[in-house]
């Protein structure tokens, strides 16, 4: 059983992180295309049309893999997380279905017109199509993040013992979940950063090579302006305010900071150190006074709860969860007296904590103190991976802030490309958004452990009834497919990025000019 859970988790992590290699670029590049095409419609200059078409070509190469890997995500809840799908589908499924109706349909229909409608639509109509692709992709992210935020902070739903699942009680609560709000801004803005960095880096490459300068400078300036807006949104309206609500979000925050003991307010921020899970302390910590309290609570007098206190709270909730589980069994066996129903309703908030014991004893109610101790230890994520990946994310983010600031300053002074060293820095910063984004998702989802749905459904309960063979078959096949198509995608990306706007075959750009001269 443990192996099934581990393999299922591995497959999900692999496919989700892979999917998110392509999503951010779609999110960001789509809006950059809108900016470029708007300039074309306003100024009527062909170069902006060429820019839209060229960056659109790269957009298409990326978009194809986004769609491919997105299919896996949609199938996978049902194929590999069947009990999860049954248990929370009533709540979790709705935003996914609405995403399809409202966003993905829009995006997919108009992406066809974006590529093939240049001569069929009027200029303004075509710009409209491009806008709807960008709008659709961001809306798509909104609904997916509403669903994801519900996993982190499951509001607006209640357990129903007659149907043995969670059921939605307030759609507004699910949509306006505070975690969803900040997650949406943070994630979508980080996608905009990825799009901007992509254009900035590749434009810098042309500048370094001294090719298609006018094309590259214009692209660079748009990317710099869009990037600075994106990175500021990502950092300022960042994720941290989402850590105030919900027990699991608190545990995540404490793990990120390796905050074992609750400090007096305002808490200091551990800049760097070595988390030690066994001894429950942080070795060699370098701390900045007040910083954490201000970042996490935006105040000087609120506490940030430490992990030790959270663990103590979890033990109480696990013991209460055992009671809830016992009452649920009574109800299921038909003993539906009003007293039992009332008692169950009073304790069902901790039913999920009781289910944490399922890993150790199927019967839950007969758990020994030792088993309870193990379940309590499970109830927080491993600190070190959280601590480090958070710092990778923030470090990359801050570095990119400086890159965009300087790029923006250069374009404002009309000195794009004059500083070779900076152009090189821009070029080699290309992977940073992806590193930051993947690290960020790791923090968000690994930090949710041991839960699939925070405080409601432990991850180990969510899996399908499958065999090891089935999982090995799917993991190996997906890994093989994904490796091959990633190699092909990278090959095409590099090829067309190197070729630049000459790939449009307009005859106006570097390589074709070169051929003409030689010819």
């Amino acid at each position, binding site marked *: 059983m443990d192996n099934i859970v581990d393999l299922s988790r591995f497959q999900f992590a692999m496919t989700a992180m892979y999917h998110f290699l392509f999503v951010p670029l779609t999110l960001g590049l789509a809006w950059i295309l809108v900016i470029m095409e708007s300039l074309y419609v306003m100024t009527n200059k062909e170069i902006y049309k060429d820019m839209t078409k060229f960056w659109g070509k790269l957009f298409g190469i990326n978009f194809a893999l986004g769609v491919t890997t997105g299919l896996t995500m949609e199938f996978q809840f*049902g*194929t590999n997380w069947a*009990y999860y799908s049954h248990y929370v*589908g009533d709540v979790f*499924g709705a935003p996914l279905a609405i995403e399809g109706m409202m966003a993905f349909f829009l995006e*997919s229909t108009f*992406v066809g017109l974006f590529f093939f409608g240049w001569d069929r639509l009027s200029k303004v109509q075509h710009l409209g199509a491009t806008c709807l692709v960008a709008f659709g992709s961001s809306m798509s992210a909104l609904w997916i993040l509403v669903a994801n935020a519900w996993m982190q902070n499951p509001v607006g739903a209640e357990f129903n013992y007659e149907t043995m699942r969670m059921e939605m009680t307030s759609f507004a609560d699910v949509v306006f979940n505070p975690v969803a709000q900040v997650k949406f801004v943070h994630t979508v803005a980080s996608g905009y950063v990825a799009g901007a960095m992509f254009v900035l880096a590749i434009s810098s490459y042309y500048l370094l090579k001294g090719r298609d300068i006018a094309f590259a400078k214009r692209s660079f300036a748009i990317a710099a302006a869009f990037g600075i807006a994106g990175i500021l949104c990502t950092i300022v309206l960042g994720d941290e305010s989402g850590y105030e609500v919900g027990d699991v979000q608190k545990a995540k925050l404490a793990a990120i900071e390796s905050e074992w003991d609750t400090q007096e307010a305002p808490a200091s921020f551990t800049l760097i150190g070595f988390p030690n899970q066994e001894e429950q302390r942080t070795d060699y910590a370098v701390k900045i006074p007040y910083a954490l309290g201000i970042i996490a609570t935006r105040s000087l007098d609120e506490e940030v709860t430490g992990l030790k206190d959270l663990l103590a709270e979890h033990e109480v909730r696990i013991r209460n969860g055992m009671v809830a589980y016992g009452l649920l069994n009574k109800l299921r066996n038909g003993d539906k007296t009003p007293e039992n129903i009332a008692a169950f309703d009073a304790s069902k908030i901790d039913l999920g904590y009781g289910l944490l014991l399922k890993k150790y004893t199927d019967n839950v109610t007969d758990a020994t103190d030792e088993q309870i101790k193990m379940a309590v230890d499970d109830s927080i994520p491993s600190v070190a991976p959280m601590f480090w990946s958070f710092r990778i994310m923030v470090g990359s983010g801050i570095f990119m802030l400086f890159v965009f600031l300087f790029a923006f300053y250069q374009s404002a002074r009309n000195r794009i490309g004059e500083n070779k060293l900076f152009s090189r820095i821009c070029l080699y910063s290309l992977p940073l958004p992806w590193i930051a984004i993947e690290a960020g998702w790791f923090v968000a989802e690994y930090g949710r452990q041991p839960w699939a749905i925070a405080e409601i459904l432990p991850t180990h309960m969510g899996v*399908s009834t*499958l065999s090891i063979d089935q999982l090995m078959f799917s993991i190996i096949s997906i890994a093989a497919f994904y490796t091959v198509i990633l190699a092909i995608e990278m090959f*095409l990306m590099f090829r067309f990025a190197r070729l630049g706007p000459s790939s449009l075959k307009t005859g106006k750009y570097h390589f074709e000019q070169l051929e003409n001269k030689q010819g």
Partner: protein
Amino acid sequence: MFDYETLKLIWWVLICVLLIGFVITDGFDMGVGALLPVIGKTDEERRIMINTIAPHWEGNQVWLVLAAGAIFAAWPTVYATAFSGFYVAMMLTLFALFFRPVGFDYRSKMADTRWRTSWDWGIFIGSAIPPIIFGVAFANLLQGVPFTLDEFLRSSYQGGIIDLLNPFALLVGVFSLMLFVLQGSTWLQMKTEGALKERARKVSLIAAPVVCALFAIAGIWLAKGIDGYVLTSVIDTNGPSNPLLKTAVLQSGAWLTNYDTYPITMVAPALGLTFPLLAWFASKKDCNAAAFVSSSIAILGVLLTCAFSMFPFIMPSSLDPSASLTLWDAVSSEFTLNIMTIAAVIFLPLILLYTSWAYFKMFGRIGKAFMTKYKHSAY
């Protein structure tokens, strides 16, 4: 807004609509892909075929994505049980579907012959395999699926992949592929010209009678040789959704009872039988649009036949018929169905509107002149 019983019915109808929408629209994309190595003799012809669907296939595929999403949201127990039960089949469908987005976009990016030929086969696999698996899956739903539900409503599938591939299922798989091919060939009749169009017409003239014959054979087989399921207890259609609160049994001829009770439902198999013939007739007369419309109506008839035969069952269990999933007891809560209905009422008309606009804008046949003009920007 509506009572729970009505909402459950609405979602049965809506999911039928989404699946029919998928087979009609993405059906011709897959049909074209499956015909790519068959009637596309040269690279240019294959490019023409691909470019007839290039602006639309992405949107069309969303019918499938949306159908899966709607099943997740409206029938979570079905989504969980079917997707995990058919695990290997689902994975194979997924892998096949991988080929299309990359195939369509990447094929034209390089002129190398080997590169393009490889993608041609990729697109072929991505277009021909899913229809077969869908057919096999629906046939298995009609035969009942060996799964059980425990008291916590955790499902386990007890069969193997080989059990899925029984003779009836294989027949329906081939039938399904032919249905998609008919849809694809009638689309190509409408959208191409010259020799390519003539070849598409020839395919339609063969596929249409085959579809009709296979549908008839499958129908007779279903009526005579495959036992259906009936409910043996009253289901509280307004009650909580839990499949274990009712009883059901296997009974021969049970899949025909709805046609006795509601004779109007006979329309569905009638459409499924006659419209392939009309598609044949229209192809013969070179009325290309009429052929396409007839083929689309045939799809409607075929899928409705499947839905009407099984109503109210969605996924019967052959191991424990009482655990079968029906549209009354494998669904979401009343609250969620209400929310989803509101969303569908707002967005489905919008989808139909802008999709039609996209087709309207891209109207017209594609031929050699088009490929010469858009040599560098088309797929």
